[in-house]
């Protein structure tokens, strides 16, 4: 090889990596998180003039409390919101593993929430066990229907599922507005208000377990997380999902009915997202509004993707994002700036984590020195 041809070689060349040792990929992500926190710290410093250390301290306090009196309370709220985000991400996992882009979690959560609220309002005189069965069933069904529609069209006519599920979100959004206006209480407030309020009522509210209001949320979501992990990893259906995700042609060749699996998987995915709506409405908000899903349906997409469909990794990612969110809101309150800063900071941090994926999937090779090549 002559020096002349060498000049045309790129200085840096990228090659796809086959695998990367676990510790290395963890390191890459850690570096990304630390780098993003530094950048975010600088930005917060420029905006508020507060020392970054103080800011991080305040962030932690926002997520976990700053006095003996509110450690437990704040931490539980963080846990509750983490569980909500985790539940949606777990629901998305099978669809994403199949390379079915279910962007419709926001809508699936909302219709699940509507179904739950409807049961709480109209069936509140049922015995509690029956009421809960109705709520679970209705929310599962609502979410499943919302997931089924795009799946059927994808399976039969290859309709673009990303765009379809995205649109379904806004149909659900307006449907929620419709029911909010219908159920508003008091009339004219355009809010549903706390459903079945009052110590004697609380029909359809999650009971507290071990004295903790949100314990049942944790139990349900953790059960789903573990269950989904084994479903994806060790069941026949989970294997079919993985094969389709790798190559639909391979799946067909192996005799897997691709259509059936797409529809079945989206039923499961939508149903779990619907259940997330149930957990929110019955287990924490006790009301329904257009902000019941609150963008978590979109954030969960990022959680599921970053965790590479491993539901246990999702716990960590969901916790990280929730802590950041709570922390940024605390910083905003403490330094008297708009709490919308939390979205900005979350965005920056996610950009870094998304970008760091590159270094896990690809490696860069520098051009060799001419002498070595010669």
């Amino acid at each position, binding site marked *: 090889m002559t020096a002349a041809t060498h000049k045309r070689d790129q200085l840096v060349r990228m090659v796809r990596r086959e695998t990367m040792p676990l510790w290395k990929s963890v390191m890459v992500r850690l570096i990304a998180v630390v780098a993003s926190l530094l950048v975010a710290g600088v930005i917060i410093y420029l905006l508020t003039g507060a020392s970054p250390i103080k800011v991080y301290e305040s962030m932690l306090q926002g997520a976990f409390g700053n006095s003996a009196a509110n450690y437990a309370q704040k931490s539980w709220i963080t846990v509750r919101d983490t569980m909500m985000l985790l539940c949606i991400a777990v629901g998305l996992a099978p669809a994403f593993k199949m390379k079915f*882009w279910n962007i419709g979690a926001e809508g699936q959560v909302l219709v699940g929430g509507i179904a739950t609220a409807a049961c709480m309002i109209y069936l509140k005189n049922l015995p509690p066990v029956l009421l809960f069965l109705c709520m679970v069933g209705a929310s599962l069904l609502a979410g499943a229907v919302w997931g089924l529609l795009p799946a059927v069209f994808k399976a039969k006519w290859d309709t*673009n599922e990303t765009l379809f599920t995205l649109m379904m979100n*806004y149909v659900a959004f307006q449907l929620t507005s419709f029911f909010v206006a219908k159920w508003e209480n008091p009339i004219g407030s355009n809010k549903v208000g706390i459903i079945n309020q009052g110590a004697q009522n609380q029909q359809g509210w999650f009971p507290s377990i071990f004295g903790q209001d949100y314990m049942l949320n944790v139990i349900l979501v953790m059960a789903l997380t573990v269950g989904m992990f084994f479903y994806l990893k060790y069941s026949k259906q989970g294997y079919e999902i993985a094969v389709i995700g790798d190559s639909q042609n391979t799946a067909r060749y192996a005799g897997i009915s691709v259509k059936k699996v797409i529809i079945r998987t989206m039923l499961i995915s939508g149903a779990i997202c619907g259940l997330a709506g149930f957990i929110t409405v019955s287990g924490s908000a006790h009301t329904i509004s257009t902000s019941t899903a609150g*963008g978590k349906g979109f954030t969960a997409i990022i959680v599921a993707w970053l965790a590479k469909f491993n539901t246990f990794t999702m716990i960590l990612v969901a916790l990280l994002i929730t802590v950041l969110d709570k922390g940024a809101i605390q910083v905003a309150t403490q330094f008297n*700036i*708009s709490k*919308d800063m939390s979205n900005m900071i979350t965005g920056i941090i996610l950009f870094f984590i998304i*970008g760091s994926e590159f270094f896990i999937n690809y490696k860069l090779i520098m051009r060799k020195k001419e002498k070595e090549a010669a």
Partner: protein
Amino acid sequence: MVGFISLFQQAVVFGTIIMFGAVGEIITEKSGNLNLGVPGIMYLGGISSLIGVFFYENSTDNPSKLVCALIAILCAFLAAALGGLIFSFLTITLRANQNVTGLTLTIFGSGVANFFGGSLNQLSGGVGQLRVPATSDAFRTQLPGLSSIGGAVGKMFFQYGWLAYVAIVVAILAQVFLSKSRAGLNLRAVGENPATADAAGINVTLYKYLATCIGAGISGLGGLYYVMDFTQGKWANDGTVESLGWLAVALVIFTTWRPKNAIWGSYLFGILYWVYMYIVGISRASQELFKMLPYVVTIIVLIFISLRKKRENQPPEALGLSYFREDR
């Protein structure tokens, strides 16, 4: 008839916002990049133009309308293009997943916009106090000569701020660019099959970068129009821009990736969105159902084009996929 005229007027003002958004996104998607950050980009465009002119108007006693308009357009375009650049860098150079990156861009954009919007409101003494009268006036200037045409025709077609006509011109230019120019042909090739385009000597990376950044810049003008004409220079943190941004994404599908269809499609979306105000005797709850219409229509169009399988109506073949030359 009077009812229809005012509905049409509302629809045009509303439609212009999403027309900018959709035309920009069509150019982006034609390069194979599905940028779900449109709402975030429109946020960035809107808030940047507001920040730019806010400081300009407060620094001089007698702001020139021309300078106001220029600053606003420049700020909106550049900030939005910067959003596009972040997306491009992550998805094109770093091969990150487009859906995830786009959604993050939306979170980021809404955070930035509402944060600085809130700060601007604070600077000027509370929500609703923020005013940029000179710029808002500048953008609400109507076409000279034509705006004096009376009657229904004049009311329906010639009484909008000039940016509404710019939107139509931009849509036509984008259409001509995509269907008639060599660069447009190359761009479409990149979006359909980047490997083939690459083999034909087209610089795939360059085309993707330019299309995404310029497309984002155009989408950002939608945010500018929203802030300057629709809300008349105020900033309200109510999430409207976000829902408008998603409508723009919906409109892209509705137009089957043709900018010329965005011209009437956006007005049709506007009519569908506002028609509930002109139907007598429906409850407030049912009004919410009517606002569903643009999305339902989009879903129907999406299903219809996948049923018909006409090649020219399909999404770009490589939409949503990142390109790495050494992959097979």
